[in-house]
């Protein structure tokens, strides 16, 4: 099958690869780059386990082709922690016991970060609706909601601190 050359920046590293045009972004991440932190839970874009950020916005990486990511910046769960410091959303998931088996977790965290980008201080219903495209079978969602709201508070606290310092 004919191949196309793409250059994608994934978790702050630029990769150039020849890919089959039919290759999904999630397959590229997992199979070519070894970014197995991003997972596949379904084949109909319902479960959201494969959620990553494309240029800072969440996208289900099974709904787009690798070639469509050419020239774009992708962030996966593996690129969130900086210098050994967990992202506030990762820390909140840990603190609030928002995961059990952990399979939905990478996608859930990526979607939750996106949600707070849009709604910095969401109420419970807003969180629940914002996560509608991500399925979890273990937690019953209650602690995930709590984690997202906890991260929101942490963000607000950090923002206030930064504001105060300025």
């Amino acid at each position, binding site marked *: 099958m004919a191949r196309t050359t793409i250059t994608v920046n994934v978790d702050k590293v630029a990769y150039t690869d020849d890919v*089959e045009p*039919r290759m999904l972004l999630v397959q590229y991440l*997992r199979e070519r780059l*070894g*970014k*197995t*932190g*991003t*997972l*596949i*839970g*379904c*084949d*109909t874009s*319902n*479960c959201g*386990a494969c959620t990553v950020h494309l240029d800072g916005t969440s996208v289900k990486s099974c709904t787009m082709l690798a070639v469509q990511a050419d020239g774009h910046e992708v962030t*996966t*769960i*593996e690129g*969130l*922690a900086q210098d050994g410091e*967990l992202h506030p959303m*990762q820390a909140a*998931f*840990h*603190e609030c*016991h928002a*995961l*059990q*088996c*952990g*399979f*939905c*977790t*990478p996608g859930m*965290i990526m979607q939750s970060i996106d949600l707070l980008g849009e709604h910095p201080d969401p109420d*419970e*219903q807003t*969180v*629940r*609706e914002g*996560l*509608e*495209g*991500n*399925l*979890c*079978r*273990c*937690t*019953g*969602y*209650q*602690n*995930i*909601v709590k984690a997202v709201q906890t991260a929101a508070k942490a963000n607000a606290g950090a923002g206030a601190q930064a504001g105060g310092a300025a």
Partner: protein
Amino acid sequence: MTITEIGTSRRRKEDQRLITGRTRYTDNMVLPGMLHLAVVRSPFAHATITSINVDEAKSAPGVIAILTGTDVAEEQGSLPCAWPITEDQKAPPHPAIAVDHVAFAGEIVACVIARSAAEARDAIELIDVDYDELPVILDLEEALTDSTLAHTDLGTNLSATWVFDSAEAGTGGDVKQALADGEVVIERTYYQQRVIPAFMEPRSTVVDPTGEQITMWSATQVPHILRLMLALTLGIPESKVRVIAPDVGGGFGGKLQVTPEEVITMLAARHTGKPCKYTETRSESLMAAHHGRAQVQRLALSATRDGTVTGLSVRLLADMGAYLGLVTPGIPILGAFMYNSIYKFPAYRFECKNLFTNKAWTDAYRGAGRPEATFAIERLMDDLAAELDMDPIELRRKNWIKHEEFPFTTVCGLEYDSGNYEAATDKAMELFGYDELRAEQQQRRESGDRVQLGLGVSTFTEMCGLAPSRVLGSLAYGAGGWEYAQVRVLPTGAVEVVTGVSAHGQGHETAWSQIVADRLGVPFDSVEVLHGDTQVSQKGMDTYGSRSLAVGGMAVVAAADKVIEKAKTVAAHLLEANRDDIEFTAGKFGVKGTDQGMTLGEISLATFAAHNLPDGFEPSLDSDATFDPENFSFPHGTHLAAMEIDTETGEAKLRKYVCVDDVGNVINPMIVEGQVHGGLVQGIAQALFEEAVYDEAGTLVTGSFVDYLVPSAPDVPSFITDRTVTPATSNVLGVKGVGEAGTIASTPAIVNGVIDALRHLGVKDIRMPCSPHRVWKTIQDAASKGMGAEAAVPKDTSPEQVADGFNSSGSIPTGDVQ
């Protein structure tokens, strides 16, 4: 022992890798030269395979080999069923790759092994299979008549009939008599629709045939059982097989299985001599991984007019699907002892007919038999309360075992060791605002509000902590119910705990660390928990049936206690004291009446050096233990649901949910609460959303997450969860188990709430899932029939005859599922 860890909400050790993407799910595995499998599945529910042409596929790019049932007929054996419930149980052979016929849509008929997953998938499209279609049997009641056979060679659809009768067993009275004498008799038929475990991680298997042991990584709950069964099925020495369950993305019973896909991946690796991987798609998972529930429950309950239940008869039709899986026939039996639930019924009879149909086979799903039983009795108790015009909680109070009556031997002969149903119920009612909600319900009824309020009550207990080996033996299960653990003290004083249970989300690494930290007086972070690899954890019975803590945790305690005994001997020797004078407190082995003492780490280092040990003392503190429980454990709880039903749209909304569970002592309250949350949503999902729907040809209509409605976050509210603590007396930890509680209790709470909201409109039952259309239709039917005695009473007929166009077992118009 100084308790500093047990009872605290330690954040989980497991989380770090899971929240950063450093995970080891099976599908993440890549090995040198690894080949990939894709399988051809039958599109027909029942057919003879007349020919398979693989020529074109063989020469497709990247294809290394193709396996058909004929190719492996000699070596593939028959997939195991470990629970023959009767001596004359009938079962068809169960090949991993079908040889000459298929019995459900989704059964594997060929396998392609290729260099890449994409090439394997491309090539299966080129395999040409000819089938001769056979008539399908999908409905349980029809299956009972044998008018159409799921397996023509078997001659019948009836696999087994299993009966428990309290009069015959000498544990209670005669049900026939009780029903004949009953002042009130309630007869009902309830339908447990077929549901799908739908763990988030699709099943995946990697087999590496290089080296002396064949190594299998698999997304399984049961690495130890799998190893044994692979050896038996394929005729390989058990010592030549190693099974690893790495990170596993949920199971819920759905990964308590020895699957065709695991056997096929093993065969492919042996044929090619190369590592092979198979990962299913979600559609394959929904279609071919085992399903759960799927029963017709015919019930008769007798009572006096004052509400004292005098007898219960249960006649069950249980859908095995096309084959018997690992414990398929035993699932209804796990429910058989639970229909009497928390009540003092004097007479009980249970009869179950296990029947084959041309659908995916059923097996364990969270609760396994006990949710079905609990649903039936809790629905019946509500119906009886309505019949007697009693409050449903008062009726339960009248019949349940009082806290001062424990231990209590039930009509099934089980001894419930402890419980306090009064305390849990009182607490739940208070948190719920029961009386206020009843007042609001009355007010809404009187004002004819479009949105009616219903209060759903569900009290439950379950037998878990599976299981005393002798009891399993008496039920003809193929193995015991013990659990194994090893505690190793390293020279530095760090502790390794090996456990025979196999976590897939439960948090064993954290909870076991808490137990051992307290037991040995070592820091939480010094404990490492190892599991899920038969080479590391050499023995075990794995994780299911809420057994991990009550059985596996107890094995850990027993092993740790042996370490303490050995350490005392070394300490006495080194401190030149009498062994009887050594006291172990707060992590220190001290000499009574002195300030002399040593830590476990110091003793461990001295034992490692072995320069100065007592004569004949083996230089090791390491100990192992196998714990076999004396009894089951019996968690219980009271769950209350406030349901708002829009009578014009049929939408059923869960407004408030309160549960008070008593799971005995708790190691980690945070983990326990998380288990309850998740369990609740799975039970609520059965009540309101989920159903595996087949069309009249036996094709699964709900074959993707587009159609199979696993609830998402906006579908459920936050829950109010609380606990009472009545420690189990059957184990020193006083623990009972929590994995299945939420799922068992919540389904009847929800449906009772729906019915309670609509009973005054003439509605007496709605089949699950209570989708808006079903609820609306039932309200309409009740209205059109008026308020007569027959209004909307569920008829004692098979699902096909329910006139709303929906059913769980047969002809369903596609595209109009929910």
